[in-house]
């Protein structure tokens, strides 16, 4: 065996050199807020500059006052009072930078945020959930490793098709595909028999399948692939009786006040943009995520569903819409953190809050008019804000963003990095790159940055080229 063969052999086995980190966390709840959350109005608030007709873009620093948090000297944007009350349990990165400027292209930035690779990567890249659930395996054999809550299973247009690409298992294949739960209240429909079929009949039918399979030709019934196939069919049946199914019964099990605590602090008729209100879907998704962690799930992603120019993708009326979005996410997220903490789950559960990029001042009066995409270094000095529609952070900003972590080995009560108080609001202290942040998450879960699986005859790493470096400053020393 020459050296190369040896190397390939060892890579093939998914092993790599280096020390295996000790896991500080077992489960992940990844709160995904696509659309580009204006960090300047939320996690990294800037000086409040109220609307004044004719003000210059460069004068606009923040659209809301800052509020104190449980963490001394650390402020969030107004409207996040609930999350502020649990900030002593979390870490904020305020200096997440990206060399790649994604310009107008949300999808590429989302792909990057969910996979750590730039599109096109040349192979079908697995999403973070697939990576973690494959590397660590299931926590409970009858509970899916990767569950995705809050996004429609809909591939009716190309944009949605693209999204399925970076949320999916990539080259890992269907075994690592997410279990999609579009609507938490409806649960995972395939854990229930279809209408008209009851459990009794279902079992008799499966028993019949087993009987007739046993009667098939010997060659077929002894083949490993065929026996695996029948075994997985039985696993699926077992999952129907497993604790995961009970997780969906939250209406029955939880107290009404608990359920209410996970609901948004706003109703449809109070909204400026009524076409895009997800109701209780996001909040109940977080409640379900907590219950799934309790049942033994490994990785759960909860999304405030993205749609172009909807939700957090705000290109006009940014100030008012941001107020409304905060009222939708603040209570449920804070309740999740409190709940996990009270149940003693937060230490071993990593909660992540992420968006594909931050926002800055627009260089043009309205979206779509930017001639060269979005000018990241724009200071807004030439933009005149003529009306309230233009008052807000409308421009995509890949240069600096925030990201939040609670529990799961991350420090409790930390702000890492700093961004400029004036335009352009780039990172001015401790800039960190996504590759290293991902390496840190993996490290806390006991996964090495060069953990890899082979595809097309070559290793494919969980951080790009295996080169991510965990950021020690973010992780707690205990654990």
């Amino acid at each position, binding site marked *: 065996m020459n050296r190369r063969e040896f190397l390939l*052999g060892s890579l*093939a086995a998914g092993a790599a050199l280096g020390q295996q980190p000790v896991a500080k966390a077992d489960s992940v709840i990844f709160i995904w807020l696509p659309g580009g959350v204006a960090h300047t109005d939320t996690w990294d608030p800037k000086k409040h500059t109220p609307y004044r007709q004719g003000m210059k873009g460069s004068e606009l620093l923040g659209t809301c006052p800052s509020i104190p948090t449980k963490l001394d000297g650390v402020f969030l944007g107004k409207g996040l009072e609930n999350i502020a009350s649990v900030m002593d349990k979390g870490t904020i990165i305020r200096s997440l930078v990206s060399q790649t400027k994604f*310009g*107008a292209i949300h*999808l590429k930035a989302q792909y990057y945020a969910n996979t750590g690779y730039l599109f*096109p990567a*040349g*192979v*079908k890249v697995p999403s973070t959930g697939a990576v973690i659930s494959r590397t660590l395996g299931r926590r409970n054999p009858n509970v899916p490793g990767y569950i995705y809550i809050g996004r429609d*299973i*809909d*591939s*009716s*247009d*190309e*944009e949605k*098709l*693209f999204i*399925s*690409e970076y949320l999916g298992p990539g080259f890992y*294949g*269907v*075994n690592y*595909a997410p279990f*999609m739960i*579009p609507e938490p209240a409806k649960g995972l429909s*395939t*854990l*229930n028999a279809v209408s*008209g*079929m009851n459990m*009794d*009949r*279902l079992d*008799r*039918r499966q028993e*019949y399948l087993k*009987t*007739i399979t046993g*009667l098939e*030709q010997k*060659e*077929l*019934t*002894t*083949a490993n*692939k*065929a026996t*695996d*196939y029948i075994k*997985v*069919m039985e*696993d*699926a049946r077992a*999952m129907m009786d497993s604790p995961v199914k009970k997780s969906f019964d939250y209406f029955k099990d939880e107290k009404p006040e608990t359920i209410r605590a996970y609901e948004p602090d706003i109703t449809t008729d109070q909204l400026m943009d009524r076409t895009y209100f997800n109701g209780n879907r996001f909040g109940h998704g977080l409640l379900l995520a907590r219950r799934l962690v309790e049942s033994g799930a490994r990785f759960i992603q909860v999304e405030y569903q993205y749609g172009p120019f909807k939700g957090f993708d705000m290109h006009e009326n940014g100030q008012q819409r941001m107020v409304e979005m905060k009222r939708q996410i603040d209570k449920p997220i804070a309740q999740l953190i409190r709940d996990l903490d009270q149940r003693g789950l937060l230490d071993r559960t990593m909660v992540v809050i992420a968006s594909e990029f931050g926002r800055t001042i627009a260089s043009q009066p309205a979206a779509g008019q930017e001639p060269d995409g979005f000018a990241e270094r724009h200071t807004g000095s030439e933009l005149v804000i003529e009306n309230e529609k233009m008052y807000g952070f409308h421009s995509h900003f890949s240069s600096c963003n925030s990201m939040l972590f609670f529990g799961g080995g991350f420090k409790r009560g930390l702000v890492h990095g700093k961004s400029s108080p004036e335009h352009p609001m780039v990172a001015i202290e401790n800039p960190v790159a996504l590759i290293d942040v991902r390496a840190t998450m993996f490290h806390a879960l006991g996964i090495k940055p060069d953990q890899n699986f*082979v595809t*097309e*005859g*070559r290793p494919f790493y969980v951080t790009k*080229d295996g080169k991510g470096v965990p950021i020690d400053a973010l992780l707690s020393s205990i654990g």
Partner: protein
Amino acid sequence: MSSERSRFPMKLALPAFCLIASPAFAQIGYNAQIKPILEQNCSKCHSAADRASGFDVSTPALLQKGGLKDGPGVVPGKPDESAIILHIEGKREPRMPRGGPPLAPEQITVLREWVAAGASSDDFVDREKLMVTRRNNRLPPAPPATSIDELIAAKWTNRTPPALCDDVAFLRRVYLDVIGVIPTIEEARRFLSSPKPDKRAALIEELLARNSDYAAHWTPFWEEALGSSTAPVTGGIPNHGNHRDWLFRSFVANKPFDVMVAELIDPTMPGHPKFRDGLANGKTLQVGFILSNNHTETIQSAANVAQVFMATSMKCASCHNHFLNSEWPQTRFMAFAGLFSAQDLELIRCERKSNQFIPAKFPFEVPGTSSTVPTTGEERLSLAAAMITDPANPRFAKAIVNRLWRRYLGLGLFEPIDDYRNDRPATNPELLDWLAVDFMRSGYDLKHSIRLILNSRTYQYRYDPAEEDHFDVSRPNKPRYYRSPSLRKLTAEQLLDSVILAGSQKLEPEKRVYLDKTTTALTRALGRPASRNEISTARSDEVAVVQSLELLNGEEFHDLVYSGSLLEKADPELLYLAALSRPPTKTEQNQSVKYLEQAVFARTNPPAEKVWIDNNLPAGEPLPNAPGVTRRLFRDANAPLPYGPKDVLFAEGMIDPQDPPKQITLQWQVVGQDSFVYRKSLRNPETGKWLRFEIPLSELTPRASSGKITGWAFDQTGGKAEWRKAGIRIAQTNPTAELLGDILWALTASPEFQYIH
């Protein structure tokens, strides 16, 4: 490169004149190339003024007519029968030009190619003919007289040949492999009861001749391999274009594979699939299989071409020298990638620019072709296409025959199939070479090689897990003997098309699963990719809980199985024939009878009618983007209307006899989809009285299974129409049919159905 060469002592039989050929990609036109050669060398004697021997070379027509002694000067398509070619090559006396020096070899080549491609007076000779001509001149000599079976057996240590599979196994294999779906009961009966000794070969022939079905089975594979997509630009990201129709047509016509690939890559080929550019954020973005909007796209296009058509994995060399394969220093790959761009590419090593530009160059030696690289993007692509498809390219033919081998036997002669490497020889290199040469000499005829493989004993050996080969990435050089085919899981398309066929004994071509515009939870779980933004030449055939849950409890699979019309025949034996192409054994028959005798658990319900819309239809609104069309839309109902695949939608309406609308179309929105998924136009309805229109859900396209209707639109073009109620008639269920459905479910969910064995 010596290891790239064939195992057989077969130097390319390149005639001398080919060695300094015109660049293989160069275009030939009568006025640009042919006429000047003739005028310079022949017109002195053979012109209108001075018709020596009665021969005049002034026009293609006169060339064909020929002179007094020698017959036609030019026979289109046949250079070796054309007097002018024979004379200038000196094969016939006197050698022409008489007394002067012979023509330059490249001039002779151009003339030969022009004659072979049809000797037309066109300024651009038919590119496809020209390509075939050139290729036929460069084919390798015939391979040794042997066969797949001999070459396979030569490697065995155990010399006893394995047994062939029985007729049922063969029948299913060949149906699923050629047309992608199992046989009907009738087709199975016909084959199984035939006493003819050559019936297997006859069936292979019969299936290969079902051109549309054959093409329908190939299309999804290549859609994935090309990254074919349905919309030009996705959220600002250009994709590879929708190649579905082009693929389908190419396979229906059994287009020579080299021509197909040249069409795909070379924009000057007449059959090149062209796409309109996409627009995103004010920028025009090129759309197609080959993209070069930027550096990354260019090198990925090059890597895709290398992977799909030369089975060569170069992606690692995009940013640095390939760590695991010394064949691929980054510069070698960048030189290749330069052929896919208008300019040479800059060496960018791990995102660091070098200001070093690598001259474009084809990475393999292709003897007898020019190394001159043209300077326009289009010409470079022509060159790339010519080099890739050239018979002397050591990897092109091997890549595709290996794909065929894997498709029909389960494991390639080299594995992984996209990563051919000199340091990892194929498991049976003699067979790989032999298949490749035979394929080239057949005129790159895919059906020829498929026929050869399917008719081999090797393909027809009985499935035997004890003999089955396996590929283990950590022991890549472990030999494979092919004494048994590998067990292969049906693809999503094969499986679902076969379930439909089993249940209803027919499969309408336009309802085949590969045509579904969208994927579903079921098809995704079975391995159909949700998107094709990255190319892929292999689906995983592993099983997963998410998949089993869809088979157990998914409404889609349930509806496909339980809506089969065959269930009404109440005959379990028929279900065995339909699903497994064989009658049940005695024990199996007893088991099914026992199952049917159980207490009835099935739901029973009488037919019921549910009115969803009474007379409160909203007023009509003109549709902004469809002039003349008025829409009355009932939507966002508090209670969506559930439907099943056997239910019937109805609407009661009256058409004004004085002013009937030109067209009436009903459309439906369903849960989870924003747009209207189903529509039905009402054809020539009677006027002046209340009519009840009934629309069985089974007739809607795409296939309706179960779901909930959330919106119902009544669209009319001009005229007057009234509606008073609309809703659904729910089909009655029959308890025996339900239990028979359970049996059919078990049969289709069994390994015997789910795998090709």
